[in-house]
């Protein structure tokens, strides 16, 4: 087993914590050691959030050191750019291109273009997978499944050490019955999007 370091980043409320927990659950089922850290507290209110997931052996720090992430799952393009110092050379980035402007931008300026962030990622990242999470969420019928869509893409990228079947089992275990079908669809469409 190769150790895997996976960083999930986004804006408070996008569901990064649940996504990181699903990866950890799937990995635990396989008997991997897992460690990680979550953003909790005040930063959750519209702030930048980061979840670290580390799988494998002899892991010490719960936080991924800089330049050690195999995969960054960016729920938002600017947040993915912000976390690039964590990416290892040749590492993979999965990103949802829709920007989320900070509340303060309308008030005090400082707005940015998601497309510029995406361009920057294209220049810097060898393995960049852009997943139109918005569109897939529409197909699934809820903006809340973005995290599962991106998980599908992450699994399909081959950078997590977890198969689609294993992730399906984790989602099945964790997601309430009435949302199960929608989440399964989100997972599969996310995986398909990454394979394109």
């Amino acid at each position, binding site marked *: 087993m190769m150790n895997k370091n996976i960083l999930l980043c986004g804006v408070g409320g996008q569901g990064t914590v649940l996504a990181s927990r699903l990866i950890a659950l799937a990995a635990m089922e396989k008997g991997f050691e897992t460690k990680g850290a979550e953003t909790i*507290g005040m930063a959750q209110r519209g702030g930048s959030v980061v979840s670290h997931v580390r799988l494998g052996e002899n892991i010490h720090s*719960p936080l991924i050191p800089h330049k050690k992430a195999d995969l960054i799952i960016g729920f938002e393009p600017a947040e993915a750019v912000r976390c690039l110092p964590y990416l290892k050379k040749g590492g993979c980035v999965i990103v949802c291109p829709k920007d989320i402007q900070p509340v303060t931008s309308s008030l005090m300026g400082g707005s940015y273009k998601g497309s510029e962030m995406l361009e920057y990622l294209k220049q810097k990242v060898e393995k960049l997978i852009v997943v139109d999470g918005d569109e897939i969420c529409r197909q699934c019928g809820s903006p809340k499944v973005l995290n599962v869509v991106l998980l599908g893409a992450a699994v399909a990228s081959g950078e997590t050490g977890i198969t689609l079947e294993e992730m399906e089992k984790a989602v099945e275990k964790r997601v309430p019955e009435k949302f199960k079908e929608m989440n399964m669809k989100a997972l599969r469409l996310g995986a398909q999007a990454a394979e394109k």
Partner: protein
Amino acid sequence: MADMFLMGNEAIGMGAIRAGVSFVAGYPGTPSTEVLETVAKHNDGKIHVEWSVNEKAAMEAAAAAAYTGARSMVTMKQVGLNVATDPLMSLAYMGVKGGMVVMVADDPGPISSQTEQDSRTFGIYSKLPVFDPSSVQEAYEMIADAFEYSEKYKTPVLFRPTTRVCHGVENVKTLEKIQLPPIEGFVKDTLKWVIFPRTSFMNHKMIEKRNPEIGNDFSSYKFNKITGSGKKGIITGGISYEYVMEILGGRDDVKLFKVSTPFPFPEKAALEFAEGLDEVLAVEELDPVLERQMLQLVGKHHLNVEIKGKLTGNVNQAGENSTETLLPVIAKFLGEEVPEEEKTEETPSMPVRPPVLCAGCPHRASFYAVKKAVEKMGETGVYCGDIGCYTLGNAKPLDMVDTCLCMGAGITMAQGLYHMEPDKKYFAFAGDSTFFASGITGIVNAVYNQADLTVCILDNSTTAMTGHQPHPGTGKTMMGEIVEKIDIKKVLEGIGVKYIQTVDPLDLNASIEAVRNACALGGVKAIIFKSPCIAIVKSSKKCEIDENKCIRCRKCIREIGCPAISAENGVIKIDSSLCTGCTLCTNVCPVNAIGGVR
């Protein structure tokens, strides 16, 4: 046993249950909150679990529980320990019968706290043993050891994880539940349980004799360990140990001393560690606790070992450590090539995302009403804030927090300012949970000492910032019982506050009126802005902008700073996924372009 995927705080809670804890009390505060919640969630009904009104109450109740021989735990964040210091300092002299663990979470950074105080230093000050876990698994196991040592030496002990352990996650190997003898019960013994100067003198002598013995005991404690060899050594503990391990990456040519019990210092083990070393680097967060004790050891035993750390400028004195910050520190110490600092490339300018009050948060409306009323009266207002979500009222455009110090200080600080400059209008903001925790005494003080100020109680019927814990005003306990609500208005009446008005902050005109009425009177006045936390009460209402009516004046954005309202290419929009239909913007719009829809 089984593997469970747990957050550090969950592991501590589960570990306490495993250790047979019978009584758990605390006050919420990041990063400590989930410990008590975990015990409550997995309570088999035999454990008394309570959110106390504040940390002092929790400490005293837990101490008494331990007087019966039961195992008790009290949970709080580091600044909470300041509130509970009075009972704990005395308790340190009195001791306990059952094991008592003071679970106090420190927050290097600080990430969500007012201070970077170090509870290990508090351990030295209060002469109480301190346990300092470095990982989630270790925290799970160590909490049981903490109870054991507490019982062995009949003293409360401090258990202090830091944020990265509290909020770290790990698959934890759980262990068999510990079987305990039956609880004896409280046995009357005046000499033992009633504190007198003479008792304290005797016990002080006993403690000074006892602590070195505990230090010796800790020298063979399983989570204190020495590994590697060489002329250079690193002493570390807590989360910093994990960063050091990450950096050393399995190499064993550096001697490493991991200290999980920073006080009383495991001197025997430390001597063994120092043997044959030329230099020692102390790697720790917050205070140089290990470093100072190593210096003391070197002086006491005339050792020719150089001690480096925070005091020598090798390690950062403030903020948290990380693998990145320690990498050059350790390389330099080992005389190895210091990795060159990566040149920061030209990145596109990054958006700043400060935390903000949620869309539809009633606090925004309360602050806005006070601001407007004071403006209309042409007065100078001074706004004393407090600790809670509403500290975020400091952000522009509201800009309604002029002071913020600690829990409950809003009221007393408004009072102090008033006595110095009586010509201004003073407002103190306190949430409902803060009111019960430490606001009441401040109001009594202000009434008694004849201040002129208006207390604004932002009553959202929960402790919102830390994740919606119940409190005396909510009518629910952590045991799940439905109890009589303690009525804030009646409390204020009892104190003698003459003007008390309860308003719905979402009714802007009524709120402004209430503020004006309060300001027209002298003395201590109170306005209870009552509206539930929007994160609990899901609203299906939405506001909408009529684009034909909107004149793009941006007054809604400029005045209230709601995260649901933004301007896209000059067009003002309301994000329907965030909007809760609070209609504050409707009230602000000068051309009635914003309507409420269901």
